[in-house]
């Protein structure tokens, strides 16, 4: 059971490398919540759900040691190749404290499809409190 509201489970697997880079994987499945309506004639993973993947991965990574993390803002999102059912989204996240505000962590994510094409670049601002 989740402890926060989310449109779907947007992270299937999460791995953290030694340098702190987090890799999140999400398999695109037409039967996932909300996708029946996006769209009835042709299913395409909504761009905002890629944002959700990055958010869920960042939230999990940042709350591991008991801290709380919430979304302060979306710095930028930029979508390229579309994601369709049967594909696999891989998001590579790097974390950097904001120079202006020490409670904010900047999460920069590069999202790629199974074929290696970039599906998007997403940068979030997360507010972290210990």
């Amino acid at each position, binding site marked *: *059971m*989740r*402890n*926060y*509201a*989310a*449109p*779907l489970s947007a992270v299937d697997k999460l791995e953290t490398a030694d340098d702190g880079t987090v890799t999140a994987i999400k398999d695109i499945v037409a039967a996932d*919540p*909300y*996708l*029946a*309506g*996006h*769209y*009835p*004639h*042709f299913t*395409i993973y*909504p*761009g*905002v*759900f890629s*944002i*959700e993947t990055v*958010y869920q991965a960042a939230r999990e990574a940042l709350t591991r040691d008991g801290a709380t993390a919430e*979304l*302060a*803002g*979306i*710095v*930028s*999102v*930029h*979508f390229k*190749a*579309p994601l*369709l059912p*049967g*594909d696999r989204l891989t998001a590579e996240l790097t974390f950097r404290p904001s120079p202006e505000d020490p409670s904010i962590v900047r999460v920069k994510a590069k999202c790629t*499809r199974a*074929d290696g*094409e970039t599906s998007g670049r997403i940068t979030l601002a997360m507010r972290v409190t210990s």
Partner: protein
Amino acid sequence: MILEHAELKRILPHRHPILQIDRVVEFEPHRRIVATKAISGCEPCYADLADDADHRFPTSLLVESMGQAGGVLWLHSAALSGEPPAGTLILGSARDVTLTGAAYPGDVLRHVVELDSVKGENAFMTGETWVGERRIATVGSMLAVMRADDALTPAG
């Protein structure tokens, strides 16, 4: 101009449960739209939650909701001008989304979206989301793109 939910389905391809605007309450063609979305605890995003879970409405859905309001502004304005664009509406990019509050079941989101410019198949917009007197989100810029359906098939 008021557009009821059923009419929105003639304008947007989105359907239940991802059609995230309920009603358009103000509409100035090619300029500005005000659309509402009521948040209910019986939506899919509130399924399978621990009882003491954080019930804040997901930001991804808030952005989707605002984007759809912008989509209606663009598509309906174009249709009223006799030139409905063809293809599928997708979110191309967005910048400077600032969150200044949260929304919960029982709240009604009120999106105010303005169309900055349209360049071919690309529409540039800015927007704000209000709950009552509280502004909970601001979008500095948002770009919606009309993609031809054959450009959306998987790579070879």
